[in-house]
């Protein structure tokens, strides 16, 4: 009896010690990873979160027009603006002009109601000289201040948390009462852009599959010595700079380029009517297929190399034709490779920037190029962020799918 109790005490003690030791070794493993995790969190995840936050959080109006924001909070958006609101607006405009922030405010409201930019900049110039009652004197400067739509736009702009940019990215219009409405047919540019991006990525993925499957099969079935040699032909492009390959395709496909020269030489077309193969969607497709082809061939090849040739032989000995043996026995075993390659190519393709920017021309640009345009040219970071958020959702879904199909820890290079 006593010994049994001692044993249970020992057991408990042992279990406790074991738990402690396990905890310590877990902690040690985690500590090895933690510097990198911390670094990635600070320099990568937080910045991306910050950037994506710009698409739903805009404090421009709130920060630079504090009194107006306060006054607008109690307003019901329907009744006529009262003197208190006008006074707050004028006071804010005087300060904003002194701080040179009126331009930012004007741009912000202009996004909610196009055409109201000059209303702010020109009124702010005279705001300091205005006298009460401002409800009379401000519309004296610009008649539009009587327009209730301007006040509604300001009210929308004064909310810091705004779905407006995501709405714009999805070609929706945000009404002042908070409801959404589809843009006019002619102004649905982002939908066209996203569909085109999806279409190009899908086509590139298909082309890569059609071109990659045969050579992966050839590489997997040839003797190792020959296949290693041929593998270099796949790896060399993989290791060559994307800029070099894009440049090379310009040299190949331009109207005075090698391909057109050959076509003229063989009499397929005449010198006067050379094909335009680049600076359009076709150029983007060709160059991107070339650049992403190794991403398809390498996973396919590693899957195909693991398929024992005896399966196909067995099928044939049981009377299957070559066709049946391939489609019923060999091809199903390559599906994991197809999945890995296709998702990888699609993920990389959908966020592609350089090649479409250089050889895409007008009709071959993709969503990344537009995001970049909004950041650099129109300086509309909020819309860039909203478009980026949409792109991120697609990419992360695909990443999740990749993990389900292939498993992230099974990712291989070369």
């Amino acid at each position, binding site marked *: 009896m006593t010994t049994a109790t001692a044993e249970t005490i020992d057991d408990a003690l042992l279990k406790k010690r074991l738990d402690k030791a*396990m905890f310590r070794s*877990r902690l040690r*493993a*985690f*500590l*090895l*990873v933690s*510097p*990198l*995790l911390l670094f*990635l969190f600070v*320099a*990568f995840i937080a*910045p*991306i979160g*910050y*950037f*994506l936050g710009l698409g739903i959080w805009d404090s421009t109006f709130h920060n630079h027009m504090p009194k107006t924001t306060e006054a607008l909070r109690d307003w019901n958006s329907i009744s006529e603006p009262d003197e208190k609101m006008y006074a707050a607006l004028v006071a804010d405009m005087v300060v904003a002009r002194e701080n040179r922030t009126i331009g930012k405010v004007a741009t912000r409201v202009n996004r909610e109601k196009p055409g109201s930019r000059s209303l702010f900049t020109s009124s702010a110039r005279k705001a300091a000289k205005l006298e009460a009652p401002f409800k009379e004197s401000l519309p004296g400067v610009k008649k539009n201040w009587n327009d209730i739509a301007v006040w509604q736009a300001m009210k929308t702009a004064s909310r810091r948390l705004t779905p407006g940019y995501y709405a714009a990215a999805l070609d929706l219009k945000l009404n002042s009462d908070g409801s959404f409405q589809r843009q006019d047919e002619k102004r649905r540019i982002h939908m066209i852009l996203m569909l085109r991006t999806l279409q190009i990525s899908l086509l590139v993925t298909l082309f890569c599959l059609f*071109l990659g499957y*045969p050579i992966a099969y*050839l590489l997997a079935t*040839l*003797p*190792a*010595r020959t296949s290693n040699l*041929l593998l270099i032909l796949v*790896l*060399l*492009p993989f*290791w060559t*700079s*994307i*800029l*070099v390959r*894009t*440049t*090379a*395709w*310009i*040299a190949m496909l*331009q109207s005075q*380029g*090698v391909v057109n020269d050959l076509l003229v030489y063989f009499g397929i077309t005449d010198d006067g009517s050379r094909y335009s193969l680049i600076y359009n969607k076709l150029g983007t497709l060709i160059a991107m297929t*070339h650049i992403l*082809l190794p991403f398809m061939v390498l996973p396919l090849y590693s899957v195909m190399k693991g398929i024992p040739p005896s399966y196909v032989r067995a099928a044939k000995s049981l009377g299957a034709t*070559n066709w049946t043996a391939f489609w019923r026995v060999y091809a199903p075993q390559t599906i994991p490779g197809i999945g890995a390659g296709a998702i990888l190519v699609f993920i990389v393709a959908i*966020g592609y*920037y350089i090649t479409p920017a*250089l050889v895409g021309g007008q009709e071959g640009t993709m969503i*990344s190029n537009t995001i*970049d345009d909004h950041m650099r040219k129109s300086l509309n970071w909020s819309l*860039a962020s909203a478009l*980026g958020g949409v792109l991120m959702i697609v*990419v992360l879904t695909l*990443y999740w799918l990749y993990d389900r199909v292939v498993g992230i*820890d099974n*990712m*291989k*290079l*070369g």
Partner: protein
Amino acid sequence: MALPAYAGWGERLWYYTFRFLCFLIFVFLISPILIVLPLSFNVEPYFSFTPGMLAGDAEAYSLRWYRDILTNGMANPEATTGWWADVWNNAQWVRSMRNSFFIGIFATIIATAFGTLAAVGLSRSEMPFKKSIMAILISPMIVPLVITAAGTFKAFSLFGLAYTHIGVILAHAILGIPFVIITVTATLVGFDQSLVQAAYSMGASPLRAFFKVQMPLILPGVISGALFAFVTSFDEVVVVIALGSVEQRTIPRQMFSGIREQISPTILAVATILVIISIALLATLELIRRRGERLRGVTPT
């Protein structure tokens, strides 16, 4: 996959058609890279073959674009003294090359150090949340570059890191990390943990056990990971466009604006040099792989 002796004519036809198709695909893969080489010796400022080049006329070939790599941007290309110093300090392409190597090397060091350490931790069986952490560490490879560039630009500006070398180096290190993680964890899969325990039992400190026992065995993975990280940085342009100013111009950045603004065969000459560099890298990687196979006793069949 040799053709068996009993194959019928249909099978023979298909066999040769398939080989021909594969040949065409290989031509598609490799011809753009090969076409760059002769075009970079063009005497004319064109991106296409001149009749003289096709006829094999020696006059139609020249090294003028290679000379242009050195002289473009020089203060005084005609000077007799201090010519090389001028090239080193002022030539556009040489400065870009210096930036590329400077940024690439430091980004590689950061990515490899952090990445190897993390991979060692990740490959321990007791590591908690292994899958989710792996997913986070691989994510820089998956996130579209434009978003990475935008995020790092916005956040780095807050700390005065935008338009600095440090900013670009940090961003490139992030992009290189997934490659280090993937290659090093792959070599660690076959690693025998009892070797480290043996070292501990003989009194080695954890640091000594790591550097003397584990590191030499996983070195091939670390080196190929580092090469991947370097090439990623060396080839990267989207982040450099966002985060870098003229002072941080790298070779791909210079090529990018070169293609957009004034397309000249100098770009082809640079491309040729880059192709040669990538051949050298590929050969290094192949040597590492062969060495690994030899050490593990695997012989190519």
